[in-house]
């Protein structure tokens, strides 16, 4: 084996190869890369051979300049400008330039490639023929977006707001009225670029017209608000679909946000994506603590506030509001195959991921620690469901009943489907006309014939929808009602598949 320094008379091929005398090479390396350490003697060999011919080797170092000590053209690339310009992904990378333009490159160490690029044979005598490279610092977490902002064109269209140097960006977001009352993550260009990595859709794509001001809502605006709400990029498909679902005419978003009622958009996710992004369908399902649930729901609220201009005290005329107006988002529990999920019951494939949006005020629990027969449990539910808004309120009311695990077992063991539970409750929730309350919520929605007969039975959900879903922790004989105003033709649940 010959030592490197003994490669005194290498064979320099010139036929069919660039004239070495005119060649300029760039080598991008870092000390924290065993393959780079391994090829440094080769780079010295190249420099020694091409320098007398007028060739140049620039050695760009991403970390410690001392690594390139002794080279005639050592370059500090700790700011990664050259690495970004040449889109370096792994190290070492050797590039041959011609008239300032890249002509060829080799990534990692493969002797045959390096020899082809340099036109020098017998390079790295004694070294293995191949060794893979290491990751470039340009690929470290957060770095691609940072470098794109620093050296490239982000393509982002939104207005830039400069926060004074000593001011706190979090406070600046408050001062501009961008928050829901809780702190938001300042939407820097880097963070927004990273958020947009979560979708293949163009930032310029208009998702729809966001009420109340009917402003074009772009993917970019959603991404900015997703940053502020605390999302991770992988939530973006769910977030974008939730915004699309909220804008479906059936849902009636303008009405939901403008009403004096406390209701707010509730987001329910079905299908494999819920598990993929770590959503909670089990214990404390409607509560705090799960990032995906919290941030996805909050994003929709921030989009409504910031893009649509729907703010409390302005278009939002809610008398009480609800903690649910910060965020209300969850996944249906699909782990037990004995019940179809909500999406499957609508006809979607179990492999499809969907977002359903429906209005909700918050939750009311219904407790029954005793019933062991499905009929008894349904009677227990019925009293609670009938009381939504008022025991005599049958018009413009809708609800989702989230059946807890221990209650679901009662139905599973009796062989009852979700649909059977719903049918049983429909039968129990028929209210005689004499018990209805007059006014908007009661008799005004009835026909003259119905009003004439005090014994006529009116369904609790006369024009609103009622659905049964599965969610919640494993222990405890509870179910939960998510109720709201709503009726067919005004505010209805809307479902959309995630693409």
């Amino acid at each position, binding site marked *: 084996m010959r030592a490197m320094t003994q490669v005194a008379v290498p064979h320099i091929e010139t036929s069919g190869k660039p004239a070495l005398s005119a060649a300029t090479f760039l080598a991008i390396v870092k000390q924290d890369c065993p393959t780079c350490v391994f090829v440094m003697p080769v780079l010295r060999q190249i420099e020694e051979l091409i320098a007398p011919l007028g060739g140049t080797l620039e050695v760009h170092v991403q970390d410690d300049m001392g690594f390139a000590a002794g080279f005639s053209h050592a370059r500090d690339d700790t700011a990664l400008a050259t690495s970004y310009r040449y889109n370096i992904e792994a190290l070492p990378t050797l590039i041959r330039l011609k008239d300032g333009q890249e002509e060829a490159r080799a990534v990692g160490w493969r002797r045959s490639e390096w020899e082809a690029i340099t036109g020098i044979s017998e390079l790295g005598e004694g070294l293995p023929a191949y060794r893979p490279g290491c990751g470039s610092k340009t690929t470290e977490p957060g770095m691609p977006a*940072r470098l794109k902002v620093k050296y490239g064109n982000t393509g982002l269209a939104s207005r830039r707001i400069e926060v004074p140097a000593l001011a706190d960006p979090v406070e600046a977001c408050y001062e501009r009225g961008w928050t829901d009352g809780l702190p938001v993550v300042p939407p820097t260009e880097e963070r927004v670029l990273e958020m947009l990595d979560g979708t293949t859709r163009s930032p310029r794509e208009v998702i729809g017209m*966001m009420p109340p001001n009917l402003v074009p809502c772009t993917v970019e605006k959603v991404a900015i608000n997703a940053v502020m709400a605390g999302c991770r990029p992988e939530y973006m498909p769910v977030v974008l679909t939730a915004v699309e679902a909220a804008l479906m005419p059936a849902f009636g978003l303008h009405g939901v946000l403008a009403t004096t009622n406390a209701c707010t958009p509730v987001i329910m996710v079905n299908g494999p994506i819920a598990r993929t992004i770590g959503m909670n369908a089990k214990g404390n399902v409607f509560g705090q603590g799960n990032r995906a649930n919290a941030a996805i729901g909050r994003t929709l609220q921030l989009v409504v506030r910031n893009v649509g201009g729907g703010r409390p005290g302005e278009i939002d005329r809610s008398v009480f509001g609800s903690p649910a107006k910060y965020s209300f988002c969850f996944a249906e529990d699909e782990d037990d195959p004995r019940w179809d999920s909500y999406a499957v019951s609508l006809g979607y494939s179990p492999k499809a991921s969907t977002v359903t949006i429906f209005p909700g005020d918050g939750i009311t629990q219904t407790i029954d620690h005793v019933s062991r027969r499905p009929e008894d449990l349904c009677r227990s539910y019925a009293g609670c469901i009938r009381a939504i808004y008022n025991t005599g309120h049958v018009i413009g009311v809708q609800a989702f009943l989230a059946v807890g695990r221990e209650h679901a077992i009662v139905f599973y063991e009796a062989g009852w489907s979700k649909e059977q539970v719903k049918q049983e409750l429909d039968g129990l929730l028929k209210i005689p006309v004499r018990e209805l309350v007059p006014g908007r919520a009661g008799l005004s929605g009835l026909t003259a014939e119905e009003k004439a007969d005090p014994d006529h039975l009116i369904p609790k959900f006369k024009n609103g929808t009622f659905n049964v879903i599965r969610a919640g922790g494993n222990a405890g004989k509870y179910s939960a009602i998510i109720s709201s105003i709503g009726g067919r033709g005004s505010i209805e649940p809307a479902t959309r598949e995630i693409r």
Partner: protein
Amino acid sequence: MPDNILLDPTAETAPAIQSRLARPPSISGKTIGLFDIAKMRGDEFLDRLGELLTARGHMVKRYRKKHFTHLAPVELKQQIKSECDLVIEGLAD
């Protein structure tokens, strides 16, 4: 990461540079706070303003912080905000 350039999350209908609060079209019927930051002779200026405003029938309230080199305590700012519609602050001597 430069944290001082933010992307606007809104429909961008409001000006990028926030404007000052609009001045009231009239001070009639407003309670006016005179805030003395304890800088020398600021009290003389505010006393005279107080006389002129009171003579014209306006409600005037006086406030003073302990020393001009100290920030006004939050409680004092909250008190002024809760008791006054407008405030005139003497900033320099």
